């Protein structure tokens, strides 16, 4: 925290002039020291006359000041990040002034390009939240706790799988690359860059192989305990992010962990005991109800005698006296359970201004609400800072963590096997010693053990060469090893046991060297330069082994086998990697009396991934800021504490070129005339002209705070254009290659972000703050490769979902391409008849529609339902996201302190596809099968001619094969996915010091909290948030649990 340190002889002159105007006053000298609460000297504190008068002096690097003026004059001490104080001048040479750190957004310190800067001299858009705001809620993943807290940061907690991440986007869509299909189709994650204690980290690392990934898939973010977090800052616009270069194209999130902060060594303990409960499960008809419904369904809709005869061939229906078929098993209950979990955190810190230290130990244990899944975290973070003198600083930190996870049957995040097994007919007996379905065994008896171990040492040394000029070097190393071991018992795997083992390692070395310089000329002009370079190297390797058909369930290894049973493994595709990065950056800031600020920055990024054509990408940015509240005409307006306007422009360039994409890949393939052939791999055509994706962003922002910061508002509007987006074009067979990576697609995002904070009572016993934030983001597809003529349909033909995506220039980027459902034919006469042939509107297979069938709009008017009847509908990306917060505090000297914190978040204007309902209705397609049936009383369904209904007739099982009334590719499933979610409520009580002193405690606080309490939505499916990034209901996946917690903070 360095600020301008200067002595000015002119000052005396000014003072003299001032003095000469003041008559009858006695001149005194007051000197002393300014410190913070902990007694550390504060440098650069300005001392002003009067409340907002002229600057008199400022403290030197040891916090000392001296002022000569008339006795009785009021002087004010002010430093950014601290509460100002004022006092009356007296003749005293040993004054000690304490400044209290405050929580005022403009006075806070933000980080730009790894350097702390006072917010009032930065021009970019960012939001900082304190670690306090995310504590009290135990969570495996700190990211989930940020939901709804930052305008423009859209976090969807779309999986409850312990240790996995949801989806995170800053300022909208940056990709149009969709992988997977059906409810498993997802957008290529475009997560922000995380900078953790000054070291950049790729949070998508665990996800790069997709959702059903190999390996443990433990997100590196899951290894950071929320208790250890000091602050989180979210950088949104390109001015703020461009200094972080290519990796920061999707925004930056800076996480700083706590520092040693107490002269007296102290021990702080936090413990949480929490309960996780599964959401309400699908209601199912059990036992005889199921049989009766199935029989009624057959009697009512059979078309032939054969259909009736099949009843007697289906023992499940006809042999009701057989004990095997006479059950009412609640299958879902076998897989889901309420679980008890705990987390403990011990932090020890201490030290003084020369040396301080901190150690944090964390244990987190979560048992998944799907049985046989869970996540444990063990983490130790130790840091010490040493300041032998004013010039030299040394910091060392070691972070060691172990994440251990069970993925159940190893299918990863989706756990789709569980949902499928939960649909088993209730008539079948539940699993027992003798009987168990292989699905049940696979989900619950598979032994799956994953671990991710990581150690991260970090050292930083810095030296102030001359006042204002400081050189810093930082070195960190990360070594992670990932393991997965899965043992599948014979009963779960076609009577043969199987062993799978995965081993991956990841090492990265990071070094940063920087020089920064700040200087103030003539009290008015301040310049600041920051010059740094970064060097990264990264190695990774992942191997796997699969031994199929091992001897038996009792023998898990060591195994020796012939090649036949070794079914796979070796180095995994994309498992091996070696990368190097080299970056140079320079940033300069100039401000004139803190009123006018100009920010310029430029960064060059080189990566071994880029290919050799354009080794470096260049990221420039520029920003301006006008701090109107420093202007003379506003200085005296008491109620305006802050009024600033910022604007910025910047570019983040992200290379798309990899050696494979630019030069192609060559494989050994085929041989001819006794020569082994090597030929190009025809998967993708090399594209030497592949341009880097360029994100340019313009931002305009307004910060204001009125009435002693009782009302604060931050508003930002932006236009972000993502150009040269990587677009995988599938190629025609006349080109030999399957696809080409082109980049002629572009998206624009524009929107508004607003955060408001109201603090009606800031002093006294009762304090309260209410905050709200919201972001409106609209994305528009600007460009597609030319030959598509403005539209590209991503047909999904392989899969039963057939939910296609259309990209149409000029419209929302991610739209569904579906049949338009216009209701249900009430009677046969309602079906339109082709006047040319006299036949009714029909399917391409010839089946004519009838009463009870869905009405699909015949867009091409040919009386045949075909692919020309698809239309663009809906937008799977939310338009509006945001959150609310409410904090009450009641502080009584003898009763203690009560607190209530409430956080909520919302998402609005989003189309989601209710595949859950579609699947529920489709359960009716085969009454002879072994699937469960569900009550459909709550569904507005056609039952008899004349009914006007929303949903087609589900009981006619013969229609499923001919017209498929509940086909997935119709907009019947498209629903408004808006929701309001009450994220968390915390009630806390802190004992008074007197009450606990006799127990030797410094602080005792107990609290109860609940998380994911309720979601208000018109959506008829289970949870509008539990959808894939493509807006498709993924409740077949891992549901998001509700959580109740009791916690305690104890300081010794």
């Amino acid at each position: 925290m360095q600020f301008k340190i200067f002595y000015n002889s002119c000052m005396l002159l000014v003072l003299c002039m001032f003095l000469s105007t003041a008559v009858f006053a006695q001149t005194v000298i007051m000197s002393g020291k300014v410190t913070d609460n902990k007694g550390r000297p504060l440098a650069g504190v300005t001392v002003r006359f009067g409340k907002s008068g002229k600057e008199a002096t400022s403290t030197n690097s040891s916090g000392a000041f001296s002022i000569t003026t008339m006795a009785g004059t009021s002087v004010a001490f002010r430093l950014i990040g601290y509460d100002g104080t004022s006092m009356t001048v007296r003749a005293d040479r040993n004054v000690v002034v304490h400044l209290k750190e405050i929580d005022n957004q403009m006075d806070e310190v933000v980080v730009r390009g790894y350097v702390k800067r006072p917010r009032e001299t930065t021009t970019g858009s960012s939001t900082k939240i304190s670690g306090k705001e995310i504590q009290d809620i135990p969570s495996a993943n700190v990211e989930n706790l940020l939901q709804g807290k930052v305008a423009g940061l859209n976090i969807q907690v779309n999986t409850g799988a312990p240790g996995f991440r949801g989806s995170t986007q800053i300022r909208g869509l940056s990709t149009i690359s969709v992988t997977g299909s059906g409810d498993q189709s997802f957008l290529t994650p475009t997560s922000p860059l995380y900078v953790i204690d000054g070291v950049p980290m790729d949070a998508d690392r665990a996800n790069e192989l997709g959702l059903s990934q190999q390996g443990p898939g433990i997100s590196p973010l899951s290894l950071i305990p929320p208790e250890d977090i000091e602050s989180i800052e979210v950088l949104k616009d390109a001015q703020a992010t461009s200094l972080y270069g290519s990796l920061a194209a999707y925004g930056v999130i800076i996480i700083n962990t706590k520092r040693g902060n107490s002269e007296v060594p102290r021990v702080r303990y936090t413990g949480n005991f929490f309960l996780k409960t599964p959401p309400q499960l699908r209601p199912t008809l059990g036992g005889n109800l199921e049989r009766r419904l199935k029989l009624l369904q057959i009697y009512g809709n059979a078309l032939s005698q054969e259909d009736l005869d099949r009843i007697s061939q289906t023992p499940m229906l006809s042999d009701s006296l057989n004990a095997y078929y006479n059950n009412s098993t609640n299958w879902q209950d076998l897989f889901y359970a309420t679980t008890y979990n705990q987390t403990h955190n011990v932090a020890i810190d201490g030290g003084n201004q020369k040396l301080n230290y901190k150690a944090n130990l964390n244990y987190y244990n979560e048992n998944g609400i799907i049985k046989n899944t869970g996540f444990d975290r063990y983490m130790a973070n130790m840091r010490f800072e040493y300041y032998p003198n004013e010039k030299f600083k040394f910091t060392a930190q070691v972070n060691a963590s172990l994440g251990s996870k069970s993925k159940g049957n190893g299918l990863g995040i989706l756990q789709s096997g569980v949902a499928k097994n939960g649909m088993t007919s209730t008539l079948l007996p539940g699993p027992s010693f003798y009987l168990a379905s292989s699905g049940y065994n696979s989900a619950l008896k598979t032994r799956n053990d994953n671990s991710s171990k990581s150690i991260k040492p970090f050292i930083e040394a810095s030296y102030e060469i001359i006042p204002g000029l400081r050189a810093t070097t930082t070195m960190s190393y990360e070594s992670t090893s990932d393991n997965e071991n899965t043992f599948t018992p014979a009963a779960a795997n076609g009577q043969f046991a199987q062993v799978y083992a995965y081993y991956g390692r990841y090492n990265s070395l990071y070094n940063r060297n920087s020089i920064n310089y700040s200087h103030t000329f003539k009290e008015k002009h301040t310049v600041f330069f920051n010059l740094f370079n970064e060097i990264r190297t990264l190695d990774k390797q992942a191997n796997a082994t699969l031994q199929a058909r091992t001897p038996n369930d009792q023998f898990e290894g060591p195994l020796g086998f012939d090649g036949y049973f070794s079914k796979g493994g070796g180095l995994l595709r994309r498992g091996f990697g070696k990368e190097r990065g080299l970056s140079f950056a320079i940033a300069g800031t100039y401000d004139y009396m803190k009123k006018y600020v100009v920010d310029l920055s430029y960064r060059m990024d080189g990566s071994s991934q880029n290919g050799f054509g354009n080794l470096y990408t260049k990221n420039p940015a520029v920003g301006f800021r006008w701090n109107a509240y420093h202007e003379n005409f506003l200085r005296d307006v008491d109620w305006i504490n802050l009024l600033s306007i910022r604007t910025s422009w910047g570019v983040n360039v992200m290379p798309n070129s990899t050696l494979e994409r630019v030069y192609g890949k060559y494989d050994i393939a085929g041989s001819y005339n006794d020569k082994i052939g090597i030929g190009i791999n025809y998967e993708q055509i090399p594209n030497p002209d592949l341009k880097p994706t360029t994100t340019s962003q313009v931002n305009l922002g307004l910060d204001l705070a009125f009435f002693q910061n009782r009302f604060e508002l931050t508003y930002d509007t932006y236009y972000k254009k993502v150009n040269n987006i990587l677009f995988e074009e599938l190629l025609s067979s006349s080109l030999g290659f399957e696809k080409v990576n082109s980049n002629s697609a572009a998206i624009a995002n524009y929107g508004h972000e607003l955060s408001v904070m109201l603090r009606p009572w800031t002093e006294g016993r009762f304090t309260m703050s209410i905050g709200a934030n919201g972001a409106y983001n609209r994305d528009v597809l600007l460009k597609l490769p030319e030959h598509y003529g403005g539209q590209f349909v991503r047909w999904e033909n392989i899969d039963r979902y057939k939910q296609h995506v259309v990209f149409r220039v000029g419209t929302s980027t991610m739209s569904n391409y579906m049949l338009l459902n216009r209701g249900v034919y009430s009677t046969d006469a309602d079906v339109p008849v082709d006047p040319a042939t006299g036949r009714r509107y029909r399917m391409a297979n010839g089946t004519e529609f009838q009463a009870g069938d869905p009405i699909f709009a015949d867009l091409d008017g040919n009386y045949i339902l075909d692919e020309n009847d698809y239309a663009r509908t809906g937008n799977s990306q939310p338009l509006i996201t945001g959150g609310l917060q409410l904090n009450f505090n009641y502080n009584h000297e003898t009763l203690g302190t009560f607190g209530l914190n409430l956080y909520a978040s919302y998402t609005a204007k989003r189309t989601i596809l209710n595949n859950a309902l579609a699947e529920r209705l489709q359960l009716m397609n085969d009454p002879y099968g072994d699937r469960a049936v569900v009550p459909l009383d709550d569904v507005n369904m056609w039952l008899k001619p004349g009914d006007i209904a929303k949903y087609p007739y589900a009981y006619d099982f013969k229609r499923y094969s001919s017209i498929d009334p509940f086909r997935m590719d119709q907009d019947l499933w498209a629903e408004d996915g808006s929701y309001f979610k009450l994220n968390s409520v915390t009630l806390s009580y802190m004992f008074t010091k007197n009450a606990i002193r006799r127990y030797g405690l410094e602080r005792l606080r107990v609290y109860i909290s609940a998380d994911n309490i309720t979601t208000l939505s018109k959506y008829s499916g289970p949870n509008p948030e539990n959808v894939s990034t493509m807006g498709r209901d993924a409740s077949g996946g891992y549901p998001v649990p509700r959580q109740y917690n009791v916690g305690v903070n104890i300081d010794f």
Partner: protein
Amino acid sequence: MMGCKKFLTVEPIDRLTGNNFYQSKEDVEANIARIYSQFFEKLNESWVMGAIGEARSGEIFPSPTSGTDRMILRDLGTNSMNAVYNNTLGGGRSQGYAMYKVSIWDTYYKVIQSCNILISKLEEGIPGLSAADKDRYKAEATFMRCLSYFWMVRLYGDVVYYTDAYFAKQLPREDMVSVISKCIADLEPVKDIMPWTFGDASQRGARASRGSIIALLMHMKMWNANFDSGNSMKYYESVASLGKELRVSGVHRLYRLTPEEWAKVSKGRTEESLFEFYRTINYNDLNNAYAPLWDHFLRWPYKFPRYNQQFSIAYYSSIFMYRIYPLNGSADKRKELWYEDMYANDGLFVLKKFAANVFASGNEDSNPDNTFMIFRYADALLLEAEALANLGGAREAEAVSVLNIVRDRAEAPRYAGGGADLKNFIFEERCRELIGEGVRYFDLIRTRRILNPQWTMNPMTIDQYNRRAWTWPLDASAKNFNSKIVLNDYWTGGN
């Protein structure tokens, strides 16, 4: 900055990317081996050699002893190509034949893309390659590219044509005459930089040489002489001079027609071969059991095991056999050396032409280890004779003398005559000499004899001919991601 560049250069050791390839002569050789093997995949995936050039003429019938899956031969012989497609799909009556794959053209385009990339890399310069090497490889890649186009034109008619490396644009199908003309223009300049031989007997015939280029040029010109009839005389003239160039070079010759000598020719790598896909069991080359044409016309003792190889799968109809070799006709060494039971209308028929090089015995089930001949010297000679005969007048004598080179080798009486009879005789001589080598159907098309029942048992009308009933149906997948592609409408339009 050099240091930075060095730091940022990471050689991907787990994969071979294009920037590390094409660094030596060995890389080019390996790449060329891949190009040949890729093309051969197309010949190996179905009974393509028998189907495209032989069976569609209508003279091949399944033996009475053959199973119903062999009825595909009738589908082919009656030009029921949609039936051929459907019946050979998975689960179809004749799925083993996999003839539907003939309708899928992507492998040819893989070959073309690889050739285009190789040529562009050669132009950029590859370390360690002499100027002569560079010329040879460039000519070789150009040959393979043009062979792919020519092969596709004969199968599909109009095709998409491009020669740029890394080509990724959507093009419509181009008129086949124009495609062939472009191929001729592409191939002619590289003919003279291609050596006749490489001083390595193992590459003779197996690798493209100047003789291969000449043969391909002759074939392409003869094709265009029909479809671009305004310029036919120019084409004939050019074919005649190419043929002369080939003969004068003295590099290629016809082997004597004895069992030993013919075995060498059918094994491959001979001076009689202009271009072939060389296959041998010695290099562990595995051929699809359906791939060789000869599979259908051999029985025990040329195929084993005896108990289930008593009869050939198919035979050439005696009507055809009597036509080309009339009963009690003139002497012809080919009759005795190449056939057994040549007039049998059943599984006794043997096309012994491909029966040499039988390595199997006892209960081993395998085909003779023959090369897949594409262009043979005799083929080029007869093309030259045909071109000369079409030029007529004074050139007819020349035509007869070239024709008689082939007749002499067969120890058949020399031909003397002229006019239309000469042309017909040359056609029949091609039937006799090149039977089973996959040229007859294309000869019928390009000489328009397909319209005349005198020359084929499966004639078509001029309307069918003009609507290209002779093409294969193009697989519908060709339309994917390229809206400009139109399928062969003879086959999509309900015939």
